[in-house]
């Protein structure tokens, strides 16, 4: 067989135990919250993994399965101890095999980590709450230790019966086995604490039990946290000694690298502020001390980096979780020379991590199908029954998504954008510190619609009369939104007042805080477009809870302003995902951004702002040179109402008109893209 011309190393097969995987790309184990609330494999879970097999992954590791009730990290983890999972899982493993991939199951006991509030009884080596949790553990006695070990064996037996090719033991960023290995969580003085050998004893016993339970030759691997990045926790040297200790038992077929803990969330699922490939050093060091195959981890998404890491021997396989959530077809695309078509993970953590941390099914900010493959997979799109002329007004994310999906279905699509570039608000969002990867969402969509032959016109301001004159079957209004400031505000210089028709008709609303019209008030859009603010103190109002206020505040701090952020909520950026918030708060300390929760802004004057302390109900004035209010935005929907007026309200005109994205209601990009996909799939 000749080498793959595009990524020869990634394309080459690899053997783990008695299993040969077709290429070096591994769907990393992770919590999906897709199993049912009583731990059974759901159709959604099966479709999720089968989609990645179809997408070309070599190995799929179905992750975070619990070995016993007390070891469940969530109600929605897989109950691997329960034999009822076997018949429900068998069709999934069979389909994954049919599509050429291999599948391992990752077993864990969640120990002191749980997403449930309040949690079930938690187990740990020493009675202690994990620092991020409010709940202390039960200190395990020897009977509990035996029960846990037996539970791993039982679960491994179930996986083998369900058709899994191998088993991975999680000694990773969460769970019981790492808390035993960790000097900070394990204070025992018996045979399971103290020396490294003692702290590793439980893991070795589990490995032995699992090895006895699996088919002879079936691979057994370890997901190994190499560095806890936790105060008092262990570092890389200790992690490497753990690896050597495990390897010396001869019970392990491969290592899957990992780092972090619940107390260092940024390391376990690194957000965009952590550079790509940040943990390469860990993979390299492990590779240097181990003879076993090593799966690399840590925000590896660029195919050339992945290929390079294999080529130079930094790792043997490349683990990707979020990249394959964002685009299950990543392996096929890159091995077929279509790398440019890959939908890149932007490491926002909003769709995947933020969802599952609430025990909600995994999603992706810009792959509408993630976790709901059976509904939204692009493979399931039906060609249009009748080819129609679709006109999309607005080239932001929502408009481009409608164009992409409509064109895929065979419609003739043209798209009109008033600015000289596509991307809409996403272009501004990408200017916030650490948000440059956000632009990859719209870069992906632009590449897709260009490839699909969508007729794209820039610098065109559409009007209702001309649109109707064009005679399309479908008109999609995806004109986005603008900051909701009073008419006449300086914001209008770059972005004409929109939503005027809606306001005339009582369908729109403007915030009535006194002073919003003043020229020391700047919208977030103005700031990110580069408006010069008066030097000095700036107050950013966060009534959005996400990045719009938080990232704009950082942008201003980087530009040399002294920045405060006020919010009515109990915290600034109340809807920000945890790992991101941790790093954001750290940067606020460095940039001296003052966070002022439970603080309402009730009036603005030229050089001062009236604040209301929501705890004490006290009001007072404070000097500020500029104010950046980030309120929920208003739809730029005038053209929709104009079209309705031209066409009449009934749907008998033969032209179907729909508002999509922020033009319908200003929201986060994830909601807009799902909605755009759903609408386009029905056109």
């Amino acid at each position, binding site marked *: 067989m000749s080498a793959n011309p595009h990524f020869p190393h990634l394309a080459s097969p690899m053997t783990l135990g008695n299993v040969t995987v077709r290429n070096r790309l591994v769907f990393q184990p992770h919590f999906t919250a897709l199993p049912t609330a009583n731990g059974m494999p759901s159709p959604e879970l099966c479709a999720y993994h089968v989609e990645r097999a179809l997408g070309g992954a070599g190995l799929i590791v179905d992750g975070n399965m619990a070995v016993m009730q007390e070891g469940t990290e969530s109600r929605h983890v897989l109950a691997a101890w329960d034999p009822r999972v076997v018949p429900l899982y068998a069709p999934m493993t069979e389909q994954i095999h049919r599509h050429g991939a291999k599948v391992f199951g990752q077993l864990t006991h969640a120990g002191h980590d749980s997403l449930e509030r309040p949690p079930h009884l938690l187990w740990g080596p020493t009675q202690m709450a994990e620092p991020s949790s409010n709940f202390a553990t039960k200190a395990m006695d020897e009977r509990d230790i035996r029960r846990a070990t037996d539970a791993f064996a039982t679960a491994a037996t179930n996986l083998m019966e369900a058709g899994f090719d191998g088993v991975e033991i999680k000694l990773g960023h969460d769970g019981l086995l790492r808390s035993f290995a960790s000097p900070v969580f394990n204070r025992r003085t018996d045979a399971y604490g103290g020396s490294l050998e003692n702290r590793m004893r439980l893991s070795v016993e589990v490995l032995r039990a699992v090895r006895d339970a699996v088919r002879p030759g079936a691979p057994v691997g370890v997901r190994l946290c190499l560095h806890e990045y936790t105060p008092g926790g262990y570092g890389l040297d200790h992690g490497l000694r753990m690896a050597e200790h495990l390897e010396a038992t001869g019970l392990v077929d491969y290592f899957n690298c990992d780092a972090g803990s619940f107390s260092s969330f940024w390391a376990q699922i690194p957000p965009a502020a952590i550079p790509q490939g940040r943990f390469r050093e860990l993979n390299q060091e492990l590779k240097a001390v181990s003879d076993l195959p090593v799966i690399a981890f840590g925000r590896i998404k660029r195919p050339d980096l992945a290929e390079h890491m294999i080529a130079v021997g*930094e790792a043997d396989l490349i683990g990707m979780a979020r990249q394959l959530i964002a685009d299950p077809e990543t392996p096929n695309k890159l091995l077929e020379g279509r790398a440019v078509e890959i939908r890149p993970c932007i490491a926002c953590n909003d769709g995947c991590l933020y969802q599952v941390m609430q025990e909600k099914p995994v999603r992706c900010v810009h792959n509408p199908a993630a976790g709901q493959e059976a509904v939204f997979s692009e493979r399931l799109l039906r060609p249009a029954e009748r080819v129609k002329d679709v006109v999309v007004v607005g080239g932001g994310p929502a408009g481009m998504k409608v164009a992409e999906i409509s064109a895929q279905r065979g419609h003739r699509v043209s798209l009109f954008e008033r600015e000289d570039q596509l991307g809409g608000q996403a272009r501004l969002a990408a200017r916030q510190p650490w948000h440059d990867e956000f632009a990859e969402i719209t870069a992906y969509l632009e590449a897709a619609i260009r490839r699909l032959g969508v007729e*794209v016109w820039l610098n*065109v301001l559409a009007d209702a009369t001309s649109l109707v004159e064009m005679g399309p079957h479908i008109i999609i209004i995806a004109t986005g939104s603008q900051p909701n400031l009073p008419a006449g505000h300086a914001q209008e210089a770059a972005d004409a007042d929109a939503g005027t028709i809606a306001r005339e008709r009582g369908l729109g609303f403007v915030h009535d805080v006194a002073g919003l019209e003043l020229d020391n008030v700047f919208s977030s859009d103005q700031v990110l477009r580069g408006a010069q603010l008066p030097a000095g103190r700036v107050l950013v109002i966060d009534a959005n809870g996400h990045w719009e206020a938080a990232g704009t505040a950082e942008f201003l701090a980087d530009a040399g302003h002294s920045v405060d952020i006020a919010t009515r909520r109990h915290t600034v950026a109340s809807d920000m995902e945890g790992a991101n918030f941790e790093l954001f708060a750290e940067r606020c300390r460095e940039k001296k951004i003052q966070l002022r929760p439970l603080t309402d802004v009730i009036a603005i004057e030229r050089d001062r702002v009236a604040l209301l302390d929501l705890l004490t109900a006290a009001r007072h004035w404070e000097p500020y040179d500029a104010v950046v209010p980030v309120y929920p935005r208003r739809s730029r929907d005038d053209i929709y109402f104009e079209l309705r007026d031209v066409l009449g309200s009934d749907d008998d005109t033969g032209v179907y008109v729909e508002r999509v994205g922020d033009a319908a209601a200003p929201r986060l990009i994830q909601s807009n893209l799902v909605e755009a996909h759903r609408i386009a799939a029905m056109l």
Partner: protein
Amino acid sequence: VIKIGVCVKGISLPPQARRLEPQTGRLDPAVRGELNEPDVYTVQAALDLKDSAEGGTVDLVTMGPGSAVDALRRGLAMGADHATLVADDALRGSDLLATSQVLAAVLRIRAPDLTLFGWEASDSNGGMLWASVAENLGLPVVSRVWQLELSGPAVRATRQMEYGFDVVEASMPCVVALAGTTSALRHPSLRDIIASKQKKIEVLALSALGIPTDAVGLSGSRTTVLAVSRPAARPSATVLQDDDQAADRLVTYLIERGLA
């Protein structure tokens, strides 16, 4: 009344999506629906000249896959009057020489007073086609032109040279290759776009031009792509994690190698 021909190219966007065909080593002619950006400015320059002449026509000429009609439509929406596309499977793989024969054949039929070229195609970046077309037509050629005006039966051109500007005149018919333009772009309105759909785009096969198929494509090309290869892989770089001493280590590294 002046007849201006503009040779343009349909290209694919975004640039990173372009790739070389493994068999020929030449650009994959996938979707070519965008008008090459230098050509957008050249069409504008032609329209401005037409306005200054108080009348005339602007005639677009291209060669490419069927999708290139979308690129031509953009020029028509800007205000061009007529467009010709030569599309033929036999053209695939044509180099500069073969392409120039085809464009020259169309220009002989359309017979413009003045033929304009943009400075280069932003996908293949050759920047030489105008010379070959002018040679084929036996016409004078003025290159590297920034400013162009009509001067009776001639054109007066300001050429950008190494040490300044040359101002030259050429009698028409002639070929002019722009190096840039001072024309301000006028973006078509939705109404212009609608109107452009009524304008005629003539699609010609090779046979209509009387050019034999072996005179174009790979067989009619004088340049051959011998090999296409990726840059060789480089060994891993040393990555310094910022542990508060990274700067010191970096400085030491540079000093040790005599680089600082």
